[in-house]
């Protein structure tokens, strides 16, 4: 029995998430799928588990081409997926979770199911109290319940999507031994991760995906630097930086502890000087957004202090932060930045400093036309935000930044932009920097981080992993750090 993935293509609009992916996984193997965010690994797993239909290509299991149109089809075919957040219904008992989604007659035979639960969990070496509410289980136990359920349903392939997020060290060890046992019993286990160490620990073969394509396949072990290079590609940086003269500290965090979801930033000391650019590196969800939100006043640190221009803003509201000259630009341009159905001119009125009750629309249109020219926005004053391209939305957002801003917090400022637009965005941002604005930005693009930052803060697993001066580091080292390893 082998799982063959043959020339899978899947596009979302212009984005080719999977661009001809082909590889084979043999029976009884623990196979790692490695790739940075947006490489296309989640898309591929969703295709395998029936959430997405392919544009072209096929999935072959045991010599038989599968027709996967829904998760039910995938389970029927023997492919089960464990999601990052286990699909467990918290208010249900263990037993009800177990039988949920199983085929069978209308009447539910709980006592038969209980026998089955016991049989399968014994085989796997798990222990459950069938009457316990799922709410009372740890994340690790929820995973075990999911594994039990999928095995009972006859899974031959199990996909684990970043399964070690949010579980303890012991639970992780337990999970890994379970995975090894499953593979020994002849199952195919796909292990999706961005953590190099886990792939090294666990897997006996690996596929690296970058930009929707398979760029590397090998049996483990593989030297980690090779994996890093395959994941991120070669990073070239021209040395054309002209650092601005640095001034007094604008942003200062002292022993700040910030918690949000799985992020837990502990005792962070960091300052950003006037005219300095700090880049936040790390895989998505490693804590960069949490830090930005805390600096913007959307999140209160649980301990320590955050101050701007020497004034503590610890319990201050978001609007107080705005008044202190902090400006936050989140990644979702149309979700968190602009308002659909509201025009360019209206956006500029919303952020202008005029406070008169009535709006002079002629003057507003004129002012908007001025900004449109200044920022080379392709649109008219009456164009609604959603009619603009991503690059033009970002230009509008730049135009909306107040003149007297002291600290700019940016999340993926050039994501999805073409090279020209990205360069333009940075040109405007560097102008701000020269005026003495401190800039902190998160990015997934190593090239961008190395090109524009003075210092880079690397996040891993919800906390700051390392802080590097940009002159003392390079793309290869960042690749290691992002994966949670120091370069040897």
């Amino acid at each position: 029995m082998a799982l063959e993935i043959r020339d899978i293509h899947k596009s979302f609009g212009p984005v080719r998430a999977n661009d001809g992916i082909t590889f084979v996984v043999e029976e009884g193997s623990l196979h790692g799928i490695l790739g940075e965010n947006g490489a296309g690994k989640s898309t591929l797993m969703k295709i395998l588990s029936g959430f997405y239909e392919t544009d072209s290509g096929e999935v072959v299991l045991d010599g038989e081409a599968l027709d996967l149109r829904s998760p039910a089809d995938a389970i029927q075919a023997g492919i089960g997926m464990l999601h990052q957040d286990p699909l467990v219904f918290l208010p249900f008992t263990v037993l009800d979770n177990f039988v949920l989604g199983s085929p069978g007659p209308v009447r539910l035979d709980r006592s038969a199911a209980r026998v089955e639960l016991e049989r399968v969990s014994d085989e796997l070496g798990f222990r459950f109290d069938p009457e316990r509410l799922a709410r009372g289980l740890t994340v690790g136990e929820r995973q075990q319940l999911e594994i039990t359920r999928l095995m009972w349903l006859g899974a031959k392939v199990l996909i684990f999507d970043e399964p070690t997020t949010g579980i303890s060290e012991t639970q992780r060890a337990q999970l890994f031994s379970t995975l090894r046992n499953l593979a020994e019993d002849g199952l195919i286990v796909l292990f999706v991760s961005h953590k190099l160490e886990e792939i090294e620990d666990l897997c006996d073969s690996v596929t690296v995906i970058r930009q929707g394509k398979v760029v590397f396949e090998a049996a483990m072990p593989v030297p980690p630097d090779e994996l890093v290079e395959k994941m991120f590609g070669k990073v070239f940086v021209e040395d054309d930086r002209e650092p601005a003269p640095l001034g007094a500290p604008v942003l200062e965090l002292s022993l700040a502890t910030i918690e949000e979801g799985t992020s837990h930033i502990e005792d962070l000391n960091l300052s950003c000087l006037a005219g300095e650019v700090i880049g936040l590196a790390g895989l998505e969800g490693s804590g960069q957004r949490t830090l930005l939100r805390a600096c913007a006043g959307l999140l209160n640190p649980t301990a320590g202090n955050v101050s701007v221009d020497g004034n503590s803003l610890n319990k201050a509201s978001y609007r107080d932060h705005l008044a202190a000259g902090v400006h936050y630009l989140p990644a979702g341009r149309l979700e968190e930045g602009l308002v659909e159905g509201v025009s360019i001119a209206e956006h500029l009125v919303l952020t202008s400093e005029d406070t008169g009750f009535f709006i002079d629309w002629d003057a507003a249109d004129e002012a908007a036309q001025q900004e449109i020219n200044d920022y080379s926005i392709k649109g008219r004053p009456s164009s609604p935000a959603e009619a603009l391209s991503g690059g033009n939305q970002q230009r509008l957002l730049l135009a909306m930044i107040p003149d007297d801003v002291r600290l700019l917090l940016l999340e993926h400022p050039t994501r999805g932009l073409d090279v020209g637009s990205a360069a333009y965005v940075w040109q405007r941002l560097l102008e701000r920097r020269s005026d003495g604005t401190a800039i902190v930005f998160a990015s997934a693009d190593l090239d961008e981080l190395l090109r524009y930052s003075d210092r880079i803060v690397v996040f891993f697993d919800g906390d700051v992993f390392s802080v590097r001066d940009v002159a003392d580091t390079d793309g290869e080292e960042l690749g290691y750090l992002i994966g949670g390893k120091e370069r040897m």
Partner: protein
Amino acid sequence: MKILKTTGPTLVSLAAALAFGIALLLLAGAPPFEALWLLVEGSFGSASKISATLLAWSPLLLASAGLVITFAAGLWNIGVEGQIIVGAIAATWVARSLPGPVWVILPATIIAGAIGGLLWALIAGVLKTYGGVHEIFGGLGLDFVAAGMVVYLVLGPWKRTGVASTSGTDIFREPAWMPEFEAFGTSWPVVPVALGLASVFAVWLLLRGTRFGLRLKAVGRNPQSSFLLGIPTNRYILGAFAIGGALAGVAGTVQVAAFHHKLVPSISGGYGFLGILVVLLASFSAVWVAPIALFFVAISVGSTQLDLRLGLDSAYGGVLQGIIVLFVMIGGAWSARRASVSPTARGEP
């Protein structure tokens, strides 16, 4: 061309709704064209009928204008019925207890109605912003409370001298009646119509030309972005509730002081819910509220004739109104779908 594109589907939907309405009449065994003609004649057939239609138009205009504001802020103000009722109760209280001539009582009842509706709406607003209760549930609950309150008052503290009756309180003394204007052999509801039209105009101006209106629209369309732009979203949500509630409350004043001249259990006249339909049909724009509201009350007022002349239940008017809204919304959804699906995705060349 553009006008044809946007009104074309609406006209098709209206035609479909009319056809469906005719089919219903045929099913009921009524002569369809006579019935439809009765709707027109019953609402515009004589000076007194026109006057009655205008009197019904006014509270609907007020309630709809208020709903345009709450919809602009992204709120489903289902509590509008309760706000009309509480406005009517407040106006009744003033009308019953304040002595003096009409020029004292008229503004006093209008202000009382506005305050009553405003406070009732703010309860729903505070529940939403600070209590996490969705405005649909909060509003619906408050509707029932208000409906209970009015029955209690009519049968209890404010019962008619002699015997309590669901037919209402005692008639107000005449200075508490909204003044009317005599012409063409009938009396015209000048004050209510002026209030209604003024409210629609004010709402149009507020949303079109003011910073408050623009921010309200931004909050309604994307509270997250608006908050990040520095707009105090909760304050704007409460402001929308306050304005919407105040206008609904004045509609309540019109109901007691211009139409019934007393407080009755069914004082809202259903104008709150009808207003929601009007605003949906007007696609949330103040400009279209006045003609659509007129069309709707014409159906309501005219449908009483169906009962008298054809023995059909006057509920047919409400059925027709509902059908029109449903068909127009289906038409809107359908054309939106056509617009968003590209020709290639539809499998067309």
